[in-house]
């Protein structure tokens, strides 16, 4: 229970078209991530699914039922907001109990569910505090607790981790993934951070200016991006793009190669250049190489790479690791 189908949905604010006609099938139990630069309409689409925004045209179906104009309270979905949106005047216990009380669940059962949510999310010690007395990570857990107790048919997350500091973010990422594994409930997760998308998603939908550019598993997107936007957005550090002065015979006007696919050779590679800034991360090293006749290329090397600023290097790459894009930015299939 928890499949959501979007059919030709659009959204306009006044005259501005924020979501272009869009189709998407979200399967029961999957973890789907909406990723894209900020302002591209991810939150808007999520809020349309939630029922917090009207759908300008098209249909939203939840479990096969048309829910386009169902009010949010009746959709059976739960949402975790970026700001957590906890009720500041209620204790943690009452925050979590709130949806259950609205659903007129008997008090004994409410107690039981709060206890189990507290156990899952390690909230036992904080149940009687107010949200204002909690840290960001704890608030996030309460927000998730409030969402899970009512056993929704799907969870909606809108950038839930972006207010947390980096290390906490990694922990919460794992916790949410684990939660998904144990609950097996559909989760729709919005983020602008492609690392979150890659690490958490069963499937990723890449958004750009109100359209979905590509939907697929993380590896599909990494290996077979359909266009230059997806290729550039997925992967860290970003893919290198090399503009060609003259189009190749297959029409390619631009080449793309990921930093981790560039090899450093002693002599005679595809490109020749001078090493610029060298970033040592310990496990790996990123080199920014100024290539003759091209821009700077980012190269990922071993952690013990000894190259230094100003060194001359030759760079190469396996031909099957080089993507080619036509003048429209579409990927040209490997022939």
């Amino acid at each position, binding site marked *: 229970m928890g499949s959501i189908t979007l059919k030709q949905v659009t959204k306009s604010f006044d005259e501005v078209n924020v979501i272009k006609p869009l189709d998407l099938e979200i399967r029961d139990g999957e973890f789907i991530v909406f990723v894209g630069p900020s302002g591209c309409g991810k939150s808007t689409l999520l809020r349309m699914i939630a029922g*917090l925004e009207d759908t300008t045209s098209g249909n939203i179906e939840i479990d096969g039922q048309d829910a386009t104009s169902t009010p*949010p*309270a009746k959709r059976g979905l739960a949402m975790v907001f970026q700001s957590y949106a906890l009720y500041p005047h209620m204790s943690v216990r009452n925050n979590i109990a709130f949806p259950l009380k609205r659903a007129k669940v008997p008090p004994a059962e409410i107690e039981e569910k709060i206890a189990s949510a507290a156990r899952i999310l390690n909230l036992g010690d904080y149940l009687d505090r107010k949200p204002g007395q909690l840290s960001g990570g704890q608030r996030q857990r309460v927000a998730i607790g409030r969402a899970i107790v*009512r056993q929704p048919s799907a969870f909606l997350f809108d950038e839930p981790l972006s207010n947390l500091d980096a290390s906490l973010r990694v922990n919460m990422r794992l916790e949410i993934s684990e939660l998904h594994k144990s609950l097996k409930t559909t989760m729709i997760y919005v983020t602008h951070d492609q690392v979150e998308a890659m690490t958490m998603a069963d499937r990723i939908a890449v958004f750009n200016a109100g359209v979905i550019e590509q939907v697929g598993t993380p590896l599909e997107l990494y290996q077979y991006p359909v266009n230059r936007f997806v290729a550039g957005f997925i992967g860290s550090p970003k893919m290198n793009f090399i503009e060609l002065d003259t189009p190749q015979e297959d029409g390619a006007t631009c080449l793309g190669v990921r930093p981790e696919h560039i090899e450093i050779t002693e002599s005679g590679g595809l490109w020749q250049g001078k090493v610029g800034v060298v970033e040592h991360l310990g496990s790996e090293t990123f080199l920014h190489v100024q290539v003759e006749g091209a821009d700077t290329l980012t190269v990922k090397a071993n952690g013990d790479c000894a190259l230094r600023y100003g060194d001359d290097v030759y760079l190469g790459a396996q031909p099957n690791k080089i993507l080619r894009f036509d003048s429209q930015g579409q990927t040209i299939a490997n022939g």
Partner: protein
Amino acid sequence: MAIQSSNKSKIIYTLLAWSISAAIFFPIFWTLLTSFKTEAEAISASPSLFMFDWTLENYQDVLARSPYFEHFWNSVVISLGSSLIGLLIAIPAAWSMAFVQTKRTKNLLMWMLSTKMLPPVGVLIPIYLLFRDFDLLDTKLGLVIVMTLINLPIMVWMLYTYFREIPNEILEASRMDGASIKAEIFHVLLPIALPGIASTLLLNVILAWNEAFWTLILTAANAAPLTAFIASYSSPEGLFYAKLSAASAMAIAPILILGWFSQKQLVRGLTFGAVK
């Protein structure tokens, strides 16, 4: 501006501030003091600060001469009644404007504020005649109606600025949690906005308590609140300062105390959120 004032400048500023504020407070202080004097002492050409025969006579006289408690009760009913009714009408309106903003919201707010600029004399005669024809002259009900209407724009404005500070996401969260609109307002919005609602109520009670145009014009013996009661002391000249002081003290004490306790909350509401 006082980052590292030396002790010397602190002394100077303290003296200055205390003398100015004492001067501002003096008329009230003097009234309180005079209310405990005999009439002879009250007009004495060389008034004494504390060395006089303290007496409660004036308070007894005022209570004997006029039904103070009736006027007091009228003031309470009029100010509290109009403020509570005003809240009932203003809260839904402020909710709408704060959380369901449209292009018209700003204009609507400005229009509401502009009704506050309608001079009372512009509607004086019709209101007077309508009140006469509907037997509302000199009734508490009539004044409650008028006070509610003249303070409604201020209430909507104040509540609007308080509601605006509540993130919309919290209300949306409650909707996602299955709350009906009633539950959203009663379990989420109102408890969160309670401090703001309380100070709105308070300020309007104070404004209505002190309102002295409609109360003077529309009341006579029956519904006269304290403002009108005090105005009745304006006719006989001289020789009654102590009683006037006692009556004044009794008229202003309730609201003075209420105001002092709530001064912090009052400021923001008063400026319609212009000053944080």
